[in-house]
């Protein structure tokens, strides 16, 4: 598979900038210590949780921060980093002069983003386990779950990057990602909202991503995991098809 060559290329580059990955783990840990532990003292326990047994606020927030980290890591790779290779450095154009095809480029970048999301989530899982926030072996499902989240958002990122005209357009991505991060039940349960807003929130891909990780992290296996997994798999597959087609057209211009 020639797309693997691209993954290997990214791996070689990250050997020199590994601290970028370190920062990606550092940031959710800061959030966890400040919001999870600091605000946790104010909140006490959260009762409206999967399974129904009250949990500490830190245990409640940790899986959501993990889902956000997987989402951001994958999205950054296929939007910010890929835009540089697409427009500024024109890396992909030199790749197409080799036996690599546009399809290989898309698959390679997505594959790398998924690999990166998985590694980061594994490291974060190790940290929250050390902090005593993991209560069930089902929490291991968080790792393949994070890979699925990374897949859904990496493919969406490639679709988005083909629409960007210049670096300024990146702020439109932020305009969507930040409210989603704040409102998709990262910091408080869905029951806080009135019913109509609940439905809107449930349609957000980050909400489904958080469901996918929060349930097993709290040791609960509910059909919600299946719904979330199907949602993200469908989103990733559709975006993948569109991404390959649009990237080929963008590169042919």
């Amino acid at each position: 598979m020639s797309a693997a060559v691209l993954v290997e290329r990214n791996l070689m580059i990250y050997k020199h900038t590994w601290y970028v990955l370190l920062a990606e783990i550092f940031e959710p840990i800061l959030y966890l210590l400040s919001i999870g532990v600091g605000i946790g003292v104010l909140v006490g326990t959260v009762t409206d949780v999967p399974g129904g047994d009250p949990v500490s606020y830190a245990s409640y927030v940790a899986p959501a921060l993990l889902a956000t980290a997987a989402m951001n890591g994958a999205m950054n790779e296929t939007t910010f980093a890929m835009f540089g290779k697409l427009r500024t450095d024109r890396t992909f154009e030199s790749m197409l002069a080799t036996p690599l095809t546009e399809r290989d480029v898309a698959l390679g970048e997505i594959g790398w983003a998924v690999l990166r999301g998985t590694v980061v989530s594994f490291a974060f899982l190790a940290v929250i386990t050390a902090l005593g926030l993991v209560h069930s072996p089902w929490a291991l499902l968080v790792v393949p779950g994070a890979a699925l989240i990374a897949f859904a958002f990496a493919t969406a990122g490639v679709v988005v990057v083909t629409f960007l005209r210049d670096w300024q357009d990146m702020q439109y991505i932020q305009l969507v990602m930040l409210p989603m991060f704040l409102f998709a039940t990262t910091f408080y349960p869905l029951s806080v909202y009135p019913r109509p807003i609940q439905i809107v929130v449930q349609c957000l891909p980050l909400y489904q991503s958080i469901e996918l990780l929060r349930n097993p992290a709290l040791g609960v296996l509910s059909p919600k995991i299946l719904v979330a997994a199907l949602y993200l798999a469908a989103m990733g597959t559709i975006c993948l098809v569109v991404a390959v087609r649009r990237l080929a057209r963008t590169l042919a211009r």
Partner: protein
Amino acid sequence: MTTILATREFGYWWHRYLRTWRGTIVISVANPLLFVTALGFGLGQLVDQNGADLPGGSYLAFIGPGLLAASAMQMGFINAGGPVFQSALAGGNYRSAVTTPMEPADILTGHLLFTTFRAVLDSAAILLVLVVFGSIGPASAPRALLGAVLTALAFATPMAAYAITVDRPAKLSAAFRFVIMPVYMFSGTFFPAEQLPDGLRQLVWLSPLWHGAELCRGAGDLAVHVLVLLVPIVAGYLAGRRTYTRRLTA
């Protein structure tokens, strides 16, 4: 003479701002207000249900002033980080300015004047919404504005002195991730600093953001907070005069 020349540097940034202010609204006004909405109202329901004992009463009244100071900090950092670094590069605006009668100190003063202007404008916009939300009482608004502007300068001034010496933009993002973010998370913005363990709590007293947040909240002694915030501003300004001269006349 010097003060008149500094207005030229202010004029440069003002001219740029007239073309770009729309984009800056998102990052400097919408961003903190989204945080206030999600945390103040959403998370606030959990905190208030739990009957947490907070200065100000509700969680919304606690976090609003804290986020006002924190966004002033970020604004100060962002305006003194990238723009100063870029301006000092070959072809940057500082390079053109030093070929005129302007001295490096005039350039620094003018740029900081513009940062002050931005801090007043952005903080006032956020403050207005917080007063409407009922997070800050109208009577406390002037003191909160003072706190926000001093916080912005307490970070912008030392940052400008540092950013002009930087050779790679990666150092600026490292400063943001490893200095600004931890300060942001633990300076009494999201939860009272009294909750921190012993050693850390004393460390927070050194954080300008904590003093700024207390000022915005109307807590503690006004004179003490103002004096503490003036230390990084004055020290940063004196250091900046030296680093600007060294870099721009070399």
